[in-house]
């Protein structure tokens, strides 16, 4: 099949499935049939994406484009919709569909206890999500991209708020939606600016230098929201209220990666804006470091992983800021796999001990050996253990930053590497080793539906590094494996982090009190101050603005209406007095008119 048809299949089969499940309510409410159908759709989409990738690998550098004119304007079409198949979109499509498929299979086991109607709803949202994400991935121009982006935001809201009956979940969904919507305004303004500057929405437009900085900064604001960069990261920890497979899909691999994908796609635009790239590098590095710090002190396993995602996204953003598109994109891919694996593994653990807290776990390697092994593989990959996937991608990034001589970000990212290794090892030691807690000793092994995806995802976590060359070729970017001092230092930092964690948490030879001096720092960098700031901003800012507008509406606009009504009534009353009913008055008026007419005719 042609690449275009494959892309359309990957795109439209999940959409069709979502539509079917939305319309055929009985089917949806039956639960299990909906689940199986959705998984099937995901599988088809995955198959199509893999074929597409294979095709791209065979014909490297090929570009297939389908453009359907959409909004007519001044003779030509203002906007086109369609699919663009090239190395970038094909790779991303595989990432998205593979993780989505694994997550859906995992959900078959994880969500088995849910009521049937809710189950159907869950899988409907999943299918919708695949469609939205692929619409974004295959977008040939920024406007369709934006449409997919918004749809993804919607799906995120629906999935985070899946347990909508729980108030905290509902609030978390709204918070995520609110913050990303706020960021999306920036993106929208950027898109509009792009149109104003170039008359189109193309990815590769050349923009006037005067406009490019503002344009790209606005787009970056959108990225900051979606990819949870500082200071718009506050929604991500709260988003853990959703089911764990959802977190694996949205908040590890795909949705948050959409921001990075945008930066990759729009790199021709960003390449023209020096200032924006500088800002990106700094924000990425700060986020990477800050989020890693916060992850250290979390007791909820999902929150650790959430902040870890924040941190890794910071790496990607920093990489793109340093101009290394390959670094950012490659890390996106490797991160998608091992982070999804980590989340699913955490899901398996949570499912076994019925709690998110690390204190409820312990010694689980005996009860859940497969989970433990895959989780450790993923953790090592994340920490950048040499040879595993994460090592290669992180190395690329660090090398790029080094080459650009951005020392500040470089230092932050190196420190973050240390911290990453530390907090991941902490989780591993606390959850899988040591003395089991009450709940942990009663843990049951997970069903096969939950273990299979773990295995599937472990493979790329192990071996993706080897694909670096073909990956780079696919994007048409140069790649050189460079094992220099940076890689060495990073590896040393990672290993020392692991060792330190071992000493603190496994052997308990270094008591936690040694770190007591750092506690104030930990407390201050938790999200709470930022959350409070946003709360204040919202209450003072947005609500005040709303009150002002309400005032204007009530007094000025309604006042105008009332004024016109009053004028009409009073005027009518006065005018009515002219109608005296007295014939003589009418005659008077008549004569008066006569006078006026004669005067006028005389003057003429």
């Amino acid at each position: 099949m042609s690449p275009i048809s494959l892309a359309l299949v990957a795109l439209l089969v999940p959409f069709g499935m979502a539509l079917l499940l939305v319309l055929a309510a009985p089917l949806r409410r039956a639960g299990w049939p909906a689940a199986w159908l959705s998984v099937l759709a995901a599988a088809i989409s995955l198959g199509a994406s893999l074929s597409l990738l294979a095709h791209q690998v065979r014909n490297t550098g090929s570009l297939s484009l389908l453009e359907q004119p959409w909004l007519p304007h001044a003779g030509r079409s203002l906007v086109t919709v369609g699919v663009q198949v090239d190395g970038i979109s094909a790779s991303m499509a595989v990432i998205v569909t593979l993780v989505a498929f694994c997550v859906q299979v995992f959900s078959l086991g994880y969500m088995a206890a849910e009521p049937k109607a809710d189950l159907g709803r869950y899988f409907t949202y999943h299918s919708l999500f695949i469609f939205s994400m692929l619409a974004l991935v295959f977008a040939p121009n920024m406007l369709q991209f934006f449409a997919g982006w918004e749809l993804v935001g919607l799906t995120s809201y629906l999935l985070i708020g899946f347990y909508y009956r729980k108030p905290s979940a509902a609030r978390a969904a709204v918070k995520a939606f609110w913050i990303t919507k706020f960021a999306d305004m920036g993106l929208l303004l950027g898109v509009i600016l792009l149109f104003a500057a170039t008359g189109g929405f193309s990815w590769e437009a050349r923009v006037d230098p005067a406009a490019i900085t503002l344009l790209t900064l606005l787009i970056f604001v959108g990225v900051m929201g979606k990819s949870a960069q500082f200071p718009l990261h506050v929604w991500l920890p709260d988003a853990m209220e959703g089911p764990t497979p959802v977190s694996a899909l949205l908040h590890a691999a795909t949705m948050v990666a959409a921001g990075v994908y945008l930066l990759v796609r729009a790199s021709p635009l960003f390449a023209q804006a020096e200032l924006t790239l500088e800002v990106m590098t700094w924000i990425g590095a700060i986020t990477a470091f800050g989020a890693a710090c916060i992850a250290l002190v979390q007791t909820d396993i999902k929150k650790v992983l959430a902040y870890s995602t924040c941190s890794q996204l910071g790496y990607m953003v920093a990489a793109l800021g340093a101009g290394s598109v390959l670094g950012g994109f490659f890390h996106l891919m490797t991160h998608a796999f091992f982070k999804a694996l980590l989340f699913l593994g955490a899901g398996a653990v949570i499912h076994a001990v019925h709690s998110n807290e690390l204190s409820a776990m312990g010694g689980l390697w005996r009860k859940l050996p497969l989970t433990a092994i895959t989780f450790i593989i993923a953790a090592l990959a994340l920490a950048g253990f040499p040879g595993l996937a994460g090592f290669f991608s992180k190395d690329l990034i660090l090398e790029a930053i080094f080459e650009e001589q951005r020392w500040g970000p470089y230092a932050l990212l190196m420190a973050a590497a240390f911290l990453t290794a530390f907090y991941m090892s902490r989780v591993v030691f606390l959850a899988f080793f040591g003395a089991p807690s009450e709940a942990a000793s009663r843990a049951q092994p997970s069903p096969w539906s939950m273990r299979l995806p773990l295995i599937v995802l472990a493979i790329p976590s192990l071996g993706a590094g080897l694909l670096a060359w073909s990956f780079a070729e696919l994007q048409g970017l140069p790649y050189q494996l460079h094992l220099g001092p940076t890689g060495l230092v990073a590896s040393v930092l990672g290993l020392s982090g692991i060792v330190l964690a071992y000493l603190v948490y496994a052997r308990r030879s270094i008591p936690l009190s040694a770190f007591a001096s750092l506690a104030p720092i930990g407390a201050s960098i938790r999200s709470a101050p930022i959350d409070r700031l946003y709360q204040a901003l919202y209450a003072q800012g947005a609500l005040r603005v709303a009150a002002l507008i309400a005032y204007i509406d009530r007094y000025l606009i309604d006042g105008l209406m009332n004024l016109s009504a009053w004028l009409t009534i009073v005027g009518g009353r006065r005018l009515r007095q002219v109608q005296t009913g007295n014939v003589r008055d009418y005659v008077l008026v008549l004569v008066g008119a006569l006078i006026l007419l004669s005067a006028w005719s005389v003057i003429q």
Partner: protein
Amino acid sequence: MIAALGFGIIASVLMLAAIRVVSSPDLVRSVLWLALVLVMTAVLFLTLSAPFLAGIQLLLYTGGVITLMLFGVMLTSRQAGVEIRNEIGAISPAVLFSTILFGIMGGAIYRSSDALPRPAFASAPAPDTEALGRAFLTEHMLSFELLSVLLLAAMIGAIVLARRRDFGAPEPAPPSERTARADEETRS
């Protein structure tokens, strides 16, 4: 000279009578003053070499209209012996308006007085009755016929309107009360 003097007399009598028409408190007197106005107009017509018109004026107006007016006055004031009041309403706007109107028309006449041909009554052939008759029966025949239709219609209309309705319309109440009530209404 004599012509001017004659005209002056006619004009002044005319104006005086007209003013008495509108200012006389007694309605019957007003009607009679109107009769004088109409007679003077007929005389004026004679001086303007329109004898036929003068005759019609005397017949139609002075004879017909005045008679009708007198009848109307008598029919619409049934109080025996009570003086027929002829009430005058607000004066000032009326004075104002008529003065202004006169000013406009007078001004127009004065300003165009050069354009008007000077006294040429003597020299110009004034239209005589024969010419009038001819004009009626040839050029303005249609209007002439329509005029007769109009008169017929007016006649029939008047008869229909003034007929006593026989289908039980109640006799109006004694006029004294009703006029009093009407006055109250107008005062409110």
